[in-house]
């Protein structure tokens, strides 16, 4: 019934890591919740375009939501990843000072971290740094943060969405919000002191009704707020470009390696980031741009990134590059100001029922679960204001299981997997050793995302050093032969990104 009339207690607009974390958090409660995402899959904004770092929380100003949620998020991250079967590695971070002049800034950082409740921070000398990272070229001293970690930001987002789905949240992809109207009082009101108004949300060709609207639209959050009638915010998109290095470079870097942050900068500086898959990322740059959708990489930045990487470690040369990408920070601070403004997370007084999340930039990934709990509290208050009690679901499914990663198993397990399903014996992606079984599981994902990028994020096929040179054609063939999806229907990512714009050879 509910799927037909599209009426909900709560609608979350924006399926990034924060929106999906909120969806999962609300799915613990007996609320009728939907998540709307404008792209053909979750997590395609900032959530799949970042360093994948679980920050410790020393970078943020004490007393801010940013600092509080970052520290909380860091401390709960390992458990979260275990619940959702998402990769997590506590690799630790080195914030490296090149000379004695940078040491006071490091000490301030450490003190700030301790004020924020960050545990385990330690000042170490150059020799100790070189012990931890033998290939670093310059290291006078460093602050060592043992609790800094890495995760897979897109796998986490997908896992959160899948778990929310399993717990009854409806997820609508390709459903960008086009229009928001208030419903007249009485009609949807829950009680005399309850929500005076609800919302009619037009998205993806459907008309949704909801009592509570949560705006987790990332770089588009200011615009979405405006659509709801609250014109209070401006988001300044700030692009960060990265290089992805071959896993062969992985052995050169064991920890997160960061420079000492520059005062007033709105980023943390170009750093070296090991990924959970064994690659190294170089980046990100920090550049305010006009369009929030412009994920281009640019020649000057690529040059800077490669110079920075070589200044950390001369071995990190261009021979290791396998890809570049760009992400977008949803900054509230204008270019001339720089730095950070705290997260806005609140129900708007002028628009009851609208919960805005604005300016959720880094450390948004780390902070996503605490943010979700905080938002869940606001939702409870709103609902309970209307006289309705909110209860937890007794049958909430806490755990989500990811498909088995064949390449990560030992030979004994591999043999058993193949014996159980011969599709594990067919390797489709040679670089990352991804089997046909995993490709099939990615194609048949619970969210119903069908693009090549959706298959890529879930299976890791096409992410290796040949960048799909071997497997893309095989995946296209599986889609056609085993799922009946014709080449002209297959998109790389966004709507209209036809992989084979020529169609079929015999059809012109």
């Amino acid at each position, binding site marked *: 019934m509910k799927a037909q009339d599209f009426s909900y207690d709560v609608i979350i607009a924006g399926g990034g890591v924060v929106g999906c974390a909120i969806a999962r958090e609300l799915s613990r409660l007996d609320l009728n919740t939907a998540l709307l995402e404008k792209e053909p899959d979750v997590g395609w904004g900032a959530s799949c375009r970042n360093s994948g770092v679980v920050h410790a929380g020393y970078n943020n100003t004490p007393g801010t939501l940013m600092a509080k949620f970052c520290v909380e998020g860091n401390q709960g991250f390992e458990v979260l990843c275990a619940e959702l079967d998402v990769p997590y590695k506590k690799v630790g971070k080195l914030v490296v000072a090149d000379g004695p002049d940078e040491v006071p800034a490091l000490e301030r950082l450490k003190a700030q971290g301790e004020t924020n409740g960050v545990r385990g921070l330690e000042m170490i000398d150059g020799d100790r740094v070189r012990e931890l990272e033998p290939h670093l070229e310059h290291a006078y001293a460093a602050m060592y943060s043992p609790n800094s970690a890495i995760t897979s930001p897109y796998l986490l987002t997908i896992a959160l969405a899948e778990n929310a789905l399993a717990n009854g949240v409806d997820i609508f992809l390709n459903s960008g919000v086009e229009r928001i109207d208030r419903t007249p009082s009485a009609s949807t009101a829950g009680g005399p002191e309850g929500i005076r108004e609800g919302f009619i949300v037009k998205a993806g060709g459907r008309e949704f009704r909801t009592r509570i609207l949560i705006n987790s639209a990332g770089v588009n959050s200011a615009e979405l707020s405006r659509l709801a009638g609250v014109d209070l915010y401006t988001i300044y998109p700030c692009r960060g470009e990265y*290089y*992805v290095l071959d896993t062969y470079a992985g052995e050169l870097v064991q920890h997160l390696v960061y420079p000492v942050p520059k005062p007033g900068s709105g980023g943390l500086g170009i750093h070296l980031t090991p990924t959970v898959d064994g690659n190294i990322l170089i980046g990100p740059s920090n550049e305010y741009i006009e369009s929030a*959708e412009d*994920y*281009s*990489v*640019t*020649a000057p930045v*690529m040059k800077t990134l490669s110079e920075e990487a070589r200044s950390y470690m001369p071995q990190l040369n*261009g021979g290791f*590059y*396998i*890809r*570049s*990408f760009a992400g977008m920070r949803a900054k509230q601070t204008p270019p001339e100001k720089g730095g950070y403004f705290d997260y806005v997370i609140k129900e708007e007084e002028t628009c009851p029922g609208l919960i805005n999340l604005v300016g959720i930039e880094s450390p948004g990934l780390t902070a996503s679960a605490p943010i979700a709990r905080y938002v869940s509290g606001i939702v409870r208050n709103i609902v309970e204001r209307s006289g309705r009690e909110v209860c937890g679901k007794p049958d909430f499914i806490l755990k989500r299981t990811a498909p088995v990663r064949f390449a990560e198993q030992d*030979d*004994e397990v*591999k*043999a058993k997997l*193949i*014996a159980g399903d*011969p*599709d594990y*014996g*067919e*390797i489709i992606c*040679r*670089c990352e*050793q991804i089997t046909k079984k995993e490709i099939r599981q990615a194609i048949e994902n619970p969210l119903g995302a069908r693009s090549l990028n959706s298959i890529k994020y879930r299976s890791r096929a096409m992410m290796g*050093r*040949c*960048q*799909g*040179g*071997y497997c*893309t*054609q095989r995946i*296209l*063939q599986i889609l*056609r032969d085993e799922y009946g999806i014709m*080449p002209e229907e297959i*998109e*790389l*990512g*966004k*709507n*209209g*990104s*036809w*992989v*084979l*714009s*020529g*169609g*079929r*050879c*015999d059809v*012109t």
Partner: protein
Amino acid sequence: MTKRHMTDRKDCVIIGGGAAGLAAAAACRENGIEDILLIERGEVLGGILNQCIHDGFGLHKFSETLTGPEYAQRYIDMITSRGIPVLLNSMVTGLSPDKVLTVINRGGLHRIQARSVILAMGSRERTRGAIGIPGSRGAGIFTAGVAQNLINMKNFMTGRRVIILGSGDIGLIMARRLTLEGAKVLMVLEKLPYPSGLPRNINQCLRDFDIPLHLRRTVSYIHGGGHLTGVDIAPIGDNGEIQPDRAEYMECDSLLLSVGLIPENELSRQAGVQLDPVTGGAVVDEYGQTSVPGIFSCGNVLQIHDLVDNVSLEGEALALGVKRYLEAGKLAEPGIKVFPGQNIRYCLPQHLSGQAPAVISFRPSVPGKLHTIIFSQNGKILRKKSLLKINPAEMERIELDSALLESGSPLQVELVPGRLQS
């Protein structure tokens, strides 16, 4: 538990059933090596030859022009008629220094203890990510070999209005192929002042179809959101730097990259095989033996070839060394270092034992007219030969009589302009 540790034993395992592996397998059997296994990850033998449906293969080897599949079939027939065991649809995922292979197929995970191994895994294409073209990352960008596979093997058309970056042979072949399929190939761009592909392909694939080749030009930016809509084409300055401020926009619906091949040495690395940073392939002696005794390498996994005929010759040449290795348990130490002199980008093998006939293959570092190739030790010329033309796109192979070699002193290979008067 029972099956897992059952290790098969083989005298010689060949990894890869493309041009190199087929030739090596056939020649090994010809030389009396009985206990052979050829492992191929695809469902048929022939490797990349199967998607090369154009002709021009076999001119040197068979004195006739064949298509890729026809050329492959000649060797497949030899494999079949000689009864050489073949494992298809099987990926070698592991190779240890003591030559234990891990093989995965739908039947399970298998271990094979080989006495000798021939690496014939071929190469992969250099990608957009590796060369770092700025701009958007939408759909419509293919490496030329992937486009060739999609069009020739799967009937998928990659685009209708095409720009090709890089004048490597696959890009040139694809310029013609796409034109024959009804696409408009707007141009081929080459950053160097000379083409990277063979002269015959420039003539037969571009000139014959009026497809322009622009030298010292490259793609400086890719436009479009989800799908590419066009590219900026910029000249390369005298200093080799791209000049984006002089770029011109050109609309297209796909971009093909033919910017080089990279030997696929993932397994070689696992086995501890020493690699040459210039070729990207193994360091070998005249037997084709790598730094790990009993592991041999041939074809594009050893060095990138321009002619399949040479790949076959390189594969066939391994049989002697494999046979000697299996009989004696080792081969003579390669004590003579081979090093490139002037105008030589690289030469192979990197060292010689002097105990077997040697074929020295090399690529010039620049194109040019009449040159003389000179092999010398300590200033003493062992052999020289005039070459009417030299071209980095064309690998040369020249035999050297091992009886002339003096043990212990390095061999220099150089190309000097003109004809050398003796």
